């Protein structure tokens, strides 16, 4: 790993160092208690009965035989939990247990609490459910047609259309008219799932009138709100604790049926109730990457400058809303954050289908269009005779500018990350030979969504630091899902207080103990919770320094802080002094994104972020022209991190993003057959092992964002994005065929090669984009520049 910093003089002591994460030891010795490791006295075990039909009306549910089984304590069905919920205010379309109809194989209809899992499972099988099957919708194209019996949901529409959007910025028709070259392409991105190593698990207790839920969730705050809604209880009587987390990647971001069920069963039985999903159930809970069909048309001038772009998407949403309205808009929102597109039109639609619900996975809604956009640009570059790096450079956005869709770009290392990977890989000097190829791509990602999921004017992140004789404790609702958010918060506070990160206790992910943070999604924690922690830590430092300065009879600016000392005193002595002087020492910080980072038009809520990270990748591979088998040789990745809070943790996030990008580019797919998930196991759902993973060379570029904590930006999602198109582009470089579909499996490459050999177009992928009745396009007026510095 190499770090290139644009910050020349820094005297930071712990920020940016490669230090072990603060929660490492417990995980290494097997002591960390993940959700399923929590075992309360007198616990009952819950299993869910799930639908065997992709789409059916429920005629009756008879639980009497289940209740008669010895060891069964309670059985609930949907009528016990009639209030609908959903992560987004506009998609409150889920019952904890469905009782009117089921919408996919795996949709929960009943829950049992029993003395052990074996008994609970037997009870589930004894519940009799009478169904009336309905036509099952299995594809985007099918979902666009009027349903033959009834739509999957009775809201939204027409038919099975969940959401649509159509926006235009700038003069698109004029841009195309002025273009010297125009190209259209169609792409398909198969959906895939998060496959966290840990299956979801939740335990609830109901004591007095206090409901407590321990869960493997990324977003305890949103679960907290959903529980309050479903149980009609004040939030003050509910506590949600995010247990140490065995991997999320977006898959544990919604409120879930099993969480609702254990709460209800705990209320009924008065005993702790636990539900741990099986691996197969995790595939049904899903909320993963949407399958997206995409059409893109771009016009460029002679010099390769983009003059106009029209992007159309159609998303397979699965059976429920989840984050879908946002996912749909994200397929059109961030194209402009890497390239200066003066005229841009976007049309998108999300349809309901009878499959496990899709939602956010690492990169939420943007890996699919990024894949399409980067390959589309490669094809344009090839057609107009420019190298793909040069074409992109001519269109790169500049720092501190506005995009045509009103997004505020601040620090931007897109040129630097390009330089790093292109130089290190020798991409431009590569030798052409059949079977060997290199691919290049760039991307950008948000450092936290500019708006919360539900409308409010409250801070996005809140933090308390408390210091006393007993040490330093930092309280924040942020959730460490393995990405290292606790380490980030501890490091930010330690830097200010002259301590080491392990000197700072972190209380996080607990709605009962810590102030609100919206959760671990949209790469928001470092930027937002980090800023809240920084504010609290700075104030704490000022208070302690003031006490010491008074004692030393000097000005506060003369008090040196660091290495466990405040001025001449040890940190502990200084704290006692300050506590004597000011009483109980507690400071707070909060963070809200600036108001002017996006537009004011309808749908402008998706895309704005206080900053964007930038990534570039080069992939080097061998591809067999006969079999289509790929062997990855090496990946060069450069990431504009703003500044590393912990370089080791950033490296881990970058390498993990590269891994996940490669794995989903080459083999991961959430496939269905006859209305059923085709491979709900870790054997059949393919994900990279050690054997497939190539060498990765990582470059971190520190652009020092003016608003990020110490200049930091995100690392959790951005580095995945360029990897996927770079793989597909490298296959094209190796074999001269285009596979316009992900995952790019050997058999698809083989079919593209066959077509080429037979003299047809050497391509595999969707041929047509369906004719969709998008709504009337909303022409958005240009950004009002008087409202912002840029």
């Amino acid at each position: 790993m190499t770090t290139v910093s644009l910050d020349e003089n820094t005297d930071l002591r712990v920020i940016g160092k490669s230090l072990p994460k603060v929660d490492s030891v417990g995980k290494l010795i097997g002591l960390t208690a993940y959700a399923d490791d929590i075992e309360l006295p007198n616990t009952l075990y819950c299993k869910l009965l799930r639908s065997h039909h992709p789409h059916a009306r429920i005629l009756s549910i008879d639980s009497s035989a289940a209740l008669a089984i010895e060891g069964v304590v309670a059985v609930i069905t949907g009528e016990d939990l009639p209030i609908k919920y959903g992560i987004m205010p506009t998609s409150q379309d889920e019952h904890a247990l469905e009782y009117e109809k089921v919408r996919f194989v795996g949709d929960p209809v009943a829950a049992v609490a029993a003395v052990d899992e074996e008994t609970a499972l037997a009870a589930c099988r004894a519940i009799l459910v009478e169904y009336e099957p309905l036509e099952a919708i299995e594809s985007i194209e099918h979902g666009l047609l009027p349903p033959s019996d009834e739509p999957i949901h009775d809201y939204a529409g027409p038919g099975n259309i969940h959401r649509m959007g159509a926006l235009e910025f700038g003069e698109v028709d004029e841009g195309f008219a002025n273009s010297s070259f125009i190209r259209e392409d169609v792409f398909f991105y198969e959906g895939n799932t998060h496959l966290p190593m840990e299956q979801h698990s939740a335990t609830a207790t109901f004591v007095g009138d206090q409901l407590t839920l321990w869960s493997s969730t990324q977003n305890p705050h949103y679960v907290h709100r959903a529980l309050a809604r479903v149980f009609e209880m004040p939030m003050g009587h509910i506590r949600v604790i995010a247990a140490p987390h065995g991997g999320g990647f977006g898959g544990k971001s919604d409120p879930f049926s099993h969480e609702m069920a254990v709460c209800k069963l705990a209320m009924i039985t008065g005993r702790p109730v636990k539900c741990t999903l099986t691996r197969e159930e995790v595939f049904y809970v899903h909320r993963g990457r949407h399958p997206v069909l995409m059409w893109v048309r771009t016009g460029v001038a002679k010099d390769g400058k983009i003059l106009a772009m029209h992007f159309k998407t159609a998303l397979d949403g699965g059976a429920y809303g989840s984050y879908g309205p946002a996912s749909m808009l994200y397929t059109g929102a961030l194209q402009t954050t890497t390239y200066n597109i003066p005229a841009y039109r976007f049309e998108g639609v999300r349809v309901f289908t009878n499959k496990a619900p899709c939602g956010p996975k690492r990169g939420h809604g943007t890996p699919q269009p990024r894949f399409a956009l980067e390959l589309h640009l490669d094809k344009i570059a090839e057609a107009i005779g420019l190298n793909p790096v040069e074409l992109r450079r001519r269109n790169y956005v500049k720092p501190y500018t506005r995009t045509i869709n009103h997004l505020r770009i601040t620090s931007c290392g897109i040129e630097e990350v390009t330089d790093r990977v292109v130089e290190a890989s020798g991409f431009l000097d590569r030798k052409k030979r059949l079977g060997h190829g290199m691919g290049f791509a760039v991307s950008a990602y948000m450092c936290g969504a500019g708006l919360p999921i539900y409308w409010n004017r409250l801070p996005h992140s809140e933090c308390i630091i408390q210091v006393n004789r007993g040490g330093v404790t930092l309280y924040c609702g942020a959730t460490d899902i393995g990405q290292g958010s606790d380490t980030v918060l501890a490091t930010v506070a330690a830097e200010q207080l002259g301590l080491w990160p392990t000197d700072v206790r972190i209380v996080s992910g607990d709605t009962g103990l810590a102030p609100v943070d919206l959760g671990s999604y949209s790469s928001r924690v470092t930027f937002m919770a980090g800023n809240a922690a920084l504010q609290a830590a700075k104030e704490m430092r000022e208070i302690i320094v003031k006490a010491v300065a008074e004692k030393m009879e000097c000005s506060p600016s003369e008090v040196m802080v660091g290495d466990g000392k405040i001025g001449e005193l040890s940190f502990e002595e200084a704290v006692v002094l300050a506590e004597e002087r000011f009483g109980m020492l507690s400071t707070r910080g909060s963070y809200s994104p600036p108001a002017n980072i996006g537009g004011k038009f309808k749908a402008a809520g998706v895309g704005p972020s206080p900053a964007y990270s930038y990534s570039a990748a080069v992939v080097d591979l061998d591809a067999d022209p006969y079999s289509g088998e790929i062997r990855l040789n090496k990946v060069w990745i450069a990431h504009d991190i703003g500044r590393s809070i912990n370089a080791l943790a950033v490296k881990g996030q970058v390498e993990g993003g590269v891994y996940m990008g490669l794995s989903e580019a080459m083999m991961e797919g959430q496939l269905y057959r006859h209305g059923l998930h085709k491979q709900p196991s870790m054997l059949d759902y393919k994900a990279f092992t050690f054997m497939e993973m190539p060498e990765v060379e990582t470059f971190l570029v520190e652009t020092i964002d003016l608003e990020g904590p110490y200049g930091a930006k995100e690392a959790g999602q951005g580095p995945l994005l360029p990897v996927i198109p770079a793989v597909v582009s490298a296959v094209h470089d190796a074999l001269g065929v285009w596979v316009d579909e992900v995952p790019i499996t050997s058999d698809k490459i083989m079919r593209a090669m066959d077509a080429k050999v037979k003299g047809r177009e050497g391509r595999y992928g969707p041929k047509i984009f369906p004719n969709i009745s998008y709504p009337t396009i909303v022409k958005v007026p240009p950004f009002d520049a008087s409202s912002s510095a840029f």
Partner: protein
Amino acid sequence: MLRLPRFSYLRPGSVAEAAQVLSEYGSRARVVAGGTDLLPKMKRGQMEPEVVIGLGHINELRGIRATEDGGFEIGACVTLSEVVASPELRAAYPGYVHAAALVSTPALRNSGTIGGNLCVDTRCNYYDESYEWRKALGFCMKKDGNICRVAPASATCRAIASSDTAPAAISMGATVVLVGPNGQREVPVESLYQDDGQFYMTKAPDEILTSLRMPSPGHWKSSYVKVRNRGSIDFPLVGVAAAIQMKGSLVEACRIVITAVGPQPLDVSQAAGALVGKEIDDTLLEEVATEAAKPARPLDNADLSYVWRKRMTRRAIEQAIREAAEVG
């Protein structure tokens, strides 16, 4: 957590005792060696024995023994890892040992046995699913149902032969010892299997496979090529074992056995006749491989498309012959 259904676990101390217990319980019992095939299938409700008879406690099923004819007898409960670690076996049967080394993962090979791998259940992605999944789709003839889901017109189950070691053992002319209520018999490995994914073994249900007898390798050089999606964990999408005898640069004899392209491993050595007395060259190899791959009938019940798997059969045959010829 996915759990095992209820059963009783018996620990016979000898093969005779195991055979007796097995015949007593009949179809209500299953023997288990490493458990790496049986236990996941029991968790998914694909197999529901009331009694599981552990063979791991029987000393006579362990050990690798040199035989008088210059071959080896390998006990059924020898683990795949022990085979991989044996320099004698590696020198004599590089194809077989390589096949064992490519089974699943290192941890699985530490439990999984050579007998278990020869008997490994046929696989199909309509069948290797949980009870609830199969109930949702509709059961198939291999378990609880009456039709073949991948080939509804087929009178027999088309689940896929998935043992990596079986084709390698067949290519060396190996035999197995089966012990049943009426004593023991020795049969060629090849005749252990039949063209039916449901009743894929000719072994009687109350017979126990006790050892694999590998004849002297003589001048046979061997190889095994496994095609799969990932370099670990996965079962074969195509498996090819080749054995070859060379005289100088000329082929004297060649055997080819392919697997994972139908319900049983197929000996397609006949197609290799064209190689005999000739030098191996690309054109000849392509002809032989094309001919040898003809009986391969991959269907849409495994990973990746069957068209690709069919084509990879040819490729793997070419590669296996080449590698066998190159073995030191």
